[in-house]
């Protein structure tokens, strides 16, 4: 399908390009694995020294069978685990099956073929002696007990002076035991006059192995990706998301289970001769495709548990990540001023929404210039249901201009002041934290948290499915799912289900979703646009009720503060009821406000006058029947509420500055 051919194109483009991290792109016939021990030999195959490595991943040459190996015997070409590499492993009580003869045979065949390499020959000469474990024990890398059997646990006490030997630290443990035969050995061949002694990044060595592996026998047939005749792959690579990942995108090993057979009459013999009837992919093609995918995932993939989403341009150029948040995206732009971004200057000629749209367009214009308009951008999502198989859950190809347009629309339509904390320099003391409300768009993770709360923390499936549903809104420009919106609105209307800062964040997210939902409502007659600032001339019932609530809360809040009391205000407590029955709840709130108004008349008369003016303005704006109707409010009241509060917040910060 197209995703495989696109990945193939990406691989070829990356190889040909000058990208700085193209060295991370794995060559064909190699695989990536963690290594634990390094043995240095000279060019004649004599042991020189050894060391233990921590957290080192190398690229090692592998056959098709060994790259995707599971439980059976499948030796790698050069670097492999001790139970493959050491002839004397069984003599030291090794518990794993000794696969030395197969390994030695394979390496010997390579060295005697038309594509030998001096380093491989040196290693072969060394392992033929069959002394690997003995040498490692002498070098204190591996450890044995009194009867010369390999230890499974370090029996002595561990302390500062006698630390745990490194080999026990780096090897993976099962049930507290460590199998020393599991250590992967990588080689260095030192030759006087040749400074480059390593074997895992040596392009000559890689070439020679690639050429030898290409000579291996295999069935020829039609490759379904390129449409040409190629040597077909018998198995496909795994290790896409990380080096221990056994999930495969393409697998064809179920010959008895009717996963796919039906009209095909494949048997092991027919597959060996002519390839599988169901599908055929060229060996080189599949390796390049999976290597490209692995490289892209590690470089720019977005992970959500088992799911991975990756966005890339076929040419390898940088593209904006559809799942990144607005500020991070804009920070990646060439000219960016974080200070200015987080506390924008108020340009009274344009409103905030327009300013934000302008800034974001500038940012995107940089990308428009950088990418060709017809360049192909691909977005792909992968997920696995079982540990052995992975499926493509999302796949889109877009032109660069389309892609940038859709990202622009998402960020502009769903932008709203969001709650963030910023560090504020505080002289010599530790920097303080200040709450700010920069305009940005919530990312899917935050939307999920706002809409579902703590449930998300334990429910991976829900998190995954939300991300899956929101991604088409970002990339395809689809309408936002109404149920997520309603869930977010409901949670933002209830102040008691989370901490105060969380509630404030949920409020910002809910407003953003409401605004965006109505801006791209599938029914054109129902579309509405909201500004991010207080709209004095918006006279819809819900908006005005939201403003009323905000004014009432502020009145009481200031009065309580003036009296030094720290209680939740009536408006806060009754917010959820207010959303369900505004008119009757307003009566309660208004009655409850009277004592505080009295207090304010005494202490803050000016403030009270201003608030009364606002109250009157709102009351006048109401249509008569709208006010007395007691039907539940839609999410619009949150917009009115938040805009009113933001209005005062800005006034305050302006006057502070």
């Amino acid at each position, binding site marked *: *399908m*197209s995703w*495989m*051919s*696109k990945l193939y194109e990406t691989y070829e483009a990356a190889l040909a390009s000058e990208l700085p991290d193209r060295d991370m792109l794995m060559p064909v016939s190699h695989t990536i694995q963690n290594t634990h021990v390094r043995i240095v030999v000279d060019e004649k195959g004599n042991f020189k020294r050894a060391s233990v490595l921590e957290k080192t991943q190398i690229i090692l040459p592998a056959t098709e069978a060994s790259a995707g190996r599971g439980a059976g015997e499948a030796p790698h070409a050069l670097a492999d685990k001790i139970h493959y590499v050491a002839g004397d492993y069984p003599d030291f009580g090794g518990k794993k099956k000794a696969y030395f003869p197969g390994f030695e045979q394979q390496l010997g065949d390579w060295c005697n073929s038309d594509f030998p390499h001096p380093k491989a020959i040196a290693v072969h000469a060394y392992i033929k002696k069959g002394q690997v474990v003995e040498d490692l024990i002498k070098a204190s890398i591996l450890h044995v007990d009194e009867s010369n059997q390999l230890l499974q646990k370090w029996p002595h006490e561990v302390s500062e002076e006698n630390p745990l030997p490194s080999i026990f630290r780096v090897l993976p443990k099962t049930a507290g035991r460590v199998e020393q035969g599991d250590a992967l050995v990588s080689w260095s061949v030192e030759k006087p006059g040749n400074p480059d002694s390593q074997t895992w990044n040596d392009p000559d060595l890689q070439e020679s192995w690639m050429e030898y592996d290409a000579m291996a026998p295999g069935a020829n*047939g*039609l490759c*379904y*990706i*390129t*449409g040409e005749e190629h040597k077909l792959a018998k198995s496909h690579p795994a290790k896409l998301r990380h080096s221990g990942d056994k999930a*495969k*995108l*393409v*697998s*064809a090993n*179920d010959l*008895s*289970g*009717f*996963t*796919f057979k039906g*009209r*095909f*009459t494949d048997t092991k013999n*027919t597959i060996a001769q002519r390839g*599988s*009837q*169901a*599908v*055929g*992919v060229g060996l080189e093609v599949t390796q390049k495709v999976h290597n490209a995918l692995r490289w892209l995932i590690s470089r720019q993939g977005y992970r959500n548990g088992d799911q991975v989403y990756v966005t890339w341009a076929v040419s390898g150029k940088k593209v904006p990540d559809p799942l990144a948040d607005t500020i991070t995206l804009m920070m990646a732009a060439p000219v960016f001023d974080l200070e200015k971004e987080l506390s924008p200057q108020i340009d009274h000629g344009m409103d905030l929404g327009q300013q934000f749209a302008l800034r974001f367009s500038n940012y995107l214009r940089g990308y428009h210039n950088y990418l060709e308009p017809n360049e192909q951008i691909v977005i792909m999502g992968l*997920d*696995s*249901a*079982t540990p052995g*198989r*992975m*499926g*493509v*859950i*999302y*796949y889109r190809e877009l032109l660069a201009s389309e892609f940038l347009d859709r990202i622009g629309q998402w960020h502009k339509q769903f932008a709203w002041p969001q709650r963030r904390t910023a560090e504020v320099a505080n002289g010599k003391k530790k920097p303080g934290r200040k709450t700010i409300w920069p305009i940005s768009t919530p990312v899917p993770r935050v939307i999920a948290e706002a809409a579902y709360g703590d449930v998300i923390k334990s429910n991976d499936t829900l998190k995954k499915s939300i991300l*899956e549903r929101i991604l*088409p809104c970002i990339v*395809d420009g*689809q309408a936002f799912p109404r149920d997520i919106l309603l869930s977010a609105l409901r949670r933002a209307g209830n102040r008691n289900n989370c901490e105060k800062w969380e509630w404030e964040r949920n409020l910002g997210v809910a407003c953003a979703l409401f605004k965006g939902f109505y801006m791209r409502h599938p029914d054109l007659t129902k579309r509405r646009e909201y500004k991010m600032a207080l709209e004095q001339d918006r006279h819809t019932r819900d908006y005005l009720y939201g403003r009323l609530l905000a004014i009432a809360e502020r009145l009481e809040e200031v009065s309580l503060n003036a009296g030094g009391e720290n209680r939740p205000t009536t408006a806060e407590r009754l917010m959820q009821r207010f959303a369900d029955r505004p008119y009757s709840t307003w009566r309660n709130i208004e009655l409850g406000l009277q004592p505080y108004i009295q207090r304010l008349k005494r202490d803050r008369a000016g403030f009270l006058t201003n608030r009364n003016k606002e109250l009157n303005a709102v009351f006048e704006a109401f249509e008569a029947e709208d006010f007395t109707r007691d039907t539940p409010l839609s999410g619009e009241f949150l917009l009115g509420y938040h805009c009113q509060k933001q209005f005062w917040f800005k006034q305050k910060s302006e006057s502070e500055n």
Partner: protein
Amino acid sequence: MKNSISFRVWGRYALFTDPVTKTGGEKCSYHLPTYEAIKGVLKSIYWKPTLVWHVDKVRVIKPIRTQTKGTKPLVWGGGNSLAIYTFLHDVEYQVKAHFEWNTHRPELKKDRIDGKHFSIAKRMLEKGGRQDIFLGVRDCQAYVEPCSFGEGEGAYDTIDKLGFGLMFHGFDYPDETGKDELSSRFWNAVMRKGIIEFPRPEDCQVKRFLREMEAKPFGLDETLRPVAVEEARI
């Protein structure tokens, strides 16, 4: 064109399986219907071994949307396994197709009566198909209705050209090719202004021989009801 019908087929889900993903069990759909899938729809509307349906054009009406569903497919040895299938969601296509006589079945020559097959096909189309219509896999139920090809607005009418790479076209079955072989065909899929024009099966350049297979024999009046009798019954 002679013996041509045009109709619209729509359904909530469709799964035109990509062979590369089929073998692993995590089926992923092509974004476009395959020739074989539409031929399957036509055969469900009306088919006799005397005729071979040819799909001329398919027009995509609704925008392409995918949806993944976790499923528990049955395992031959008993029990279930888990898999994630990627379907196309909310699809609608307009199809224009015609049938020709199957020249590789000389024993059915008496059945090739002009007009009768066509009238049955049209009547069955009005009724929504003789058998259940499905898009790709049997789980994806669909419905058909006669319409005139090209009417109404489609989601991709303004897009000049969209390429989809090498796609599966269909299978060459022995009863339609005359050779005792099963082969698969591929083509480079292109959609121009929302319309996919499939090449004829003989014109597909990329073919792959799969295995030997024999055509099922049909005997007129023995295993096959002649069309005159059929028309009288319906």
